[in-house]
């Protein structure tokens, strides 16, 4: 196994080299966020500098920043809760009381995910305009809940399937009603699965940038839209852009790292385990 020592070294160097290369833009964003605007556009770029929280302070002090952040939280949590509220009863019924229609229903739900959002942009925009839902948090929550419903049903279904039916039957013997069965037995026992489903939904809502860009402008605009406003020429402030982006990305990055494996399952509808 002598020759494999070089091979191992090569693998380690490649593995780390590629990892650092892929991560570099994120690293650079975080680094830039601690610079002053002047240092951020200095040439040559500075690796060593006096770090400052100036950009963060400035981003936070903009009265509207907090409202964008609040919108992001509100629509992500709202959309996720909405999706879970509809999905939990459905997934429960399909997992524990499957009928001949269950398979078809699940696949049909999956197929609704295939409808490209841009294909229905016009009617949704007009419906929202008519209903006064443009640029409202409720509007986005509705869209996000519906958008993630198939994935949420699907993931919950696979988690519920893993739970032995006997336990629920025992509860039923004790006189638990269907909702009691779900609330007191099923959800506590499948909590890790339900939590990672919710997490995936949160991530997808938080990062969603088609509907938020098209349906919101200011009042209900989440961070995706706020960051996009930096693309205008007069918004060319590298340090502030970086600070705002870092705050917007950091929590989701941590969530994503924590739930990678469940994420694979959810995003591939259980086709890859």
């Amino acid at each position, binding site marked *: 196994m002598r020759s494999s020592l070089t091979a191992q070294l090569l693998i380690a160097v490649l593995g780390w080299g*590629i990892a650092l290369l*892929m991560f570099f833009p994120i690293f650079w964003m975080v680094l830039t966020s601690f610079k002053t605007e002047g240092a951020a556009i200095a040439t040559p770029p500075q690796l060593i500098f006096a770090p400052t929280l100036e950009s963060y302070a400035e981003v936070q002090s903009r009265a509207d920043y907090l409202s964008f952040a609040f919108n992001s939280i509100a629509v992500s949590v709202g959309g996720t809760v909405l999706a879970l509220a509809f999905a939990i009863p459905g997934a429960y019924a399909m997992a524990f009381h499957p009928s001949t229609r269950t398979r078809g229903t699940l696949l049909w739900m999956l197929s609704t995910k295939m409808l490209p959002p841009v294909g229905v*942009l016009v009617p949704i925009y007009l419906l929202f305009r008519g209903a006064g839902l443009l640029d409202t948090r409720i509007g986005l929550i509705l869209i996000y809940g519906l958008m993630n*419903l198939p994935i949420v049903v699907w993931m919950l279904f696979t988690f519920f399937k893993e739970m*032995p039916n006997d336990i629920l039957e025992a509860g039923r013997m004790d006189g638990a009603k269907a909702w009691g069965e779900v609330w007191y037995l099923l959800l506590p026992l499948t909590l890790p699965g339900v939590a990672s489903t919710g997490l995936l939904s949160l991530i997808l809502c938080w990062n969603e940038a088609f509907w938020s860009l098209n349906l919101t402008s200011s009042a209900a605009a989440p961070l*995706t839209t706020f960051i996009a406003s930096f693309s205008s020429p007069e918004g060319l402030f590298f340090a502030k852009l970086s600070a705002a982006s870092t705050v917007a990305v950091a929590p989701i990055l941590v969530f994503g790292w924590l739930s990678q494996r469940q994420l694979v399952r959810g995003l591939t509808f259980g086709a890859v385990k």
Partner: protein
Amino acid sequence: MTLRGHGALFWRVAAISVVVEFTKPKRQARKPGTLILVAPSVAVLLLWMIVPLVMTLWFSFQYYNLLNPAGAGFAGIDNYRFLITDPDFWASLGNTLILLGSVLAITVVFGTLLAVLYDQPFPGRNIARLLVVAPFFVMPTVSALIWKNLMMHPIYGVLGFLARSVGLEPVDWFAEYPMASVILILSWEWLPFALLILLTAVQSLDHEQREAARMDGAGPIAQFFHITLPHLGRAISVVVMIETIFLLTVFAEIFVTTSGGPGNATTNLAFLIYARALIQFDVGGASAGGVIAILLANIVAFFLVRTIARRLEV
């Protein structure tokens, strides 16, 4: 499955199952009305799908411009005729396919290679893996702006600095190579996704089988082509189809970086529809484009749903 994560739960469930097994009732458990539990999800999804779909179809046969309400009326196939005689449409269709093909090729090829690489043990592998998959969790507008400003800006960007420091003229990426730049950003976002899926698949590979092949004298390359790659076939097809669904309608990255330009160099179908609908307010024309986007996506969806259906155990 990660038993580790669910370890405590697993034992709790096991213990309860044993108890339940001994106290199992003889009579058939009652079935609650399950239809009423599934119905809400089905109903809202049905509404969410059918209503806009029918409206898109309806509008696509109407003269309907929000700026010119007087000209409304039945248009027959005029919107489609205008669309397919419009060079911008064909350019956008071409751009959509170039974008899709390039990003797919890059992410699948490199995703497969990286999956094999990150399956090998090396010091700090878990941390390296976290770093590689990170870009997938970055919101699209942030990815696009980070690349546009911090990386690819000809004067202040890191790439421009690197070019100058080796004596080259810095490149104004979005003016000179707009499509390649968008492809680069999208590949950076989606390579981690391909890697995540493919790595999961590689890890489920039977190591004894590979060991046996090695004993029989198969080199690493032969092992890759004869064992790993066939095993990954299914995962690769899932990656291709899911990425296709998203890449057919890339929007935020283009909206933030090039706005479809210069000219129509980076206008894809999604951006064209957006521009028709929300900039020119041509509801009819945009809807015709939307119908075509839906048709395109459905061709892919057909295969995806079939692949997943085969795996579904109900």
